[in-house]
Each structure stands twice: as C-alpha cells, then as structure tokens.
C-alpha cells in the first residue's frame, strides 16, 4: 500500500498558518528525527540547492536552538533561532522562531513567531502538526511571502502563457 500523505496547509486564523503531514512511522521516531541535529540536518533543507551547515538544538525548556542554511549556488546564508518554551518528549514542542535574513537578504530579519509542534500517532501513522503564530496578519503574510516570490512569478508566467493562447 502506498498511500501518499502530502502536506496540508491551512490558515486557522489570520495570524497563523498550520501545516499537517502524516508519516508512516512511530511517534517516538518522528520526534527523534525532529530533535536530533544529525537527523534534522538530513531533511530540514528547504528547496533544492540548500544545505544546513549549522543545526544546534538544546531541546529542553529554556534551551536554545540555531539553524542555518547555505545556498550551494551563491554561498549566501539565512537562518532561524529561538528558545524552547515547552518540551513534552515524543508529544509536543513549543518554541520561538526568529528569522535572520543573513547574507541571503530576503525578507526582514527579526521577525518572530511562536511555533507549536504536535506529534500524534494512530495505527502506526504519526501526524505531525506545526502551528505557526506570527502575532499579526501582516507579519504572517510577510513571513510566508518570503522566499516565495519565485513561485508567484512562475505562476504569473504560466498565466501569461495561458492568457496568450488563442481561444
């Protein structure tokens, strides 16, 4: 059986974004992959062409973390850092997340959100839920739009092509 569980994105309120995704693995294992830096560095990479040279995580209440990505193409970097506010091993994480535009220089540094991550297992399938609260609608839209201009531009190009087609 090869059920696909693609990520679902919703906006529960005008300052939040929720992403859910199911994984064919036990809860404890998904939690490990989410909290052990050596494992995190293997998947939390974003678009193709980026690596994650820095991944430090002190997963306990008050503990800090620092994530940094580097572009293979032009060596520019950006990152996130923050503090864990709640840690329920295997079940729940709450952490702050502060954006650093770094040398990649896309978006505004200093934007902070509060991220709640839930790990829920049923019949061997673990559902991972990330709820990001950006504090305001403006901050949310700005954060989500960061790094997504390419996507919108591509859509426009597709649209231009579509509209240019003879009817």
């Amino acid at each position, binding site marked *: 059986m090869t059920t696909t569980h*693609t990520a679902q994105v919703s906006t529960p309120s005008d300052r939040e974004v929720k992403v859910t995704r199911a994984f064919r693995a036990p809860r404890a294992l998904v939690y490990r992959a989410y909290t052990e830096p050596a*494992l995190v560095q293997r998947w939390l990479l974003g678009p193709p062409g980026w690596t994650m040279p820095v991944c430090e995580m002190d997963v306990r209440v008050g503990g800090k973390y620092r994530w940094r990505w580097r572009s293979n193409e032009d060596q520019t970097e950006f990152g996130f850092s923050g503090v864990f506010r709640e840690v329920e091993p295997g079940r729940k994480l709450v952490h702050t997340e502060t954006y650093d535009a770094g040398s990649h220089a896309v978006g505004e540094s200093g934007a902070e959100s509060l991220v709640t991550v839930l790990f829920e297992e049923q019949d061997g399938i673990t559902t991972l839920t990330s709820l990001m609260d950006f504090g305001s609608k403006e901050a949310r839209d700005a954060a989500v739009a960061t790094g997504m201009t390419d996507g919108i531009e591509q859509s426009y190009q597709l649209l231009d092509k579509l509209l240019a087609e003879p009817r």
Partner: protein
Amino acid sequence: MKEPAASERLDATFLALADPTRRAILARLARKEASVNELAEPFAMSQPAVSKHLRVLERAGLISVSQDGQRRPRRLEVRPLVEASAWIERYRDLWEQNYTRLDALLQELQEQPAKRTRKKS
C-alpha cells in the same frame, strides 16, 4: 518603493474567498460574465445584498465591471486567484520537499535493525 501591497492584496483575496456566497458568485462568473440581477437570481438574495458581496470581490480585484450599454456585467479576474493559490501551493511545496526527505529518513531508521542482522549473517 517596497512592493506595495502583495500582502494586502492577499488579505483582500482571502477575505473575499472566505465566504461561500462569494465563492459561488465567482464560480458563476467563471462560466460567463453576468449582471447584478443575473447574479442575484440563483442566490435568493436581494440585489443590495449581492451588491455588497460584489464590492468585496471588486476590492480584492477578483471581478471587474465592464460597460455594455445599460448593462454593467461583472467579469471574473483570475490574476488574484492565481496569486493566492500560488502562495498556498508554494508554501506547501516547501514543506513537502522537507517532509519527503523525512519520509525517506524515517524509513531508513526503521530498517536499521534489520540491516545490522543482515550484516552479521
């Protein structure tokens, strides 16, 4: 100047799309342009009520008004819709790329004990 209103435009689009009647109006206009009267008909709504929805849609740039003699039919404008869906889609894609890698990693981690046994034999 900063891209003035990418996020404001998105706000207006999402606000406009958050209402089922407005989505139905858009679906209707996707088939063919229509006057306010024609739009009011299937929704069992007063003309002012429909006009109110149309104003929200207009503000979001989702519809435009054309002039056709006395008729002022409304037309669907697709651009904001494309932008809104691109927003969600692109965001989803970013996560999905990570999660596909996480899938592979989780599978590898679950297979590890078996690998070790195989090595021994």
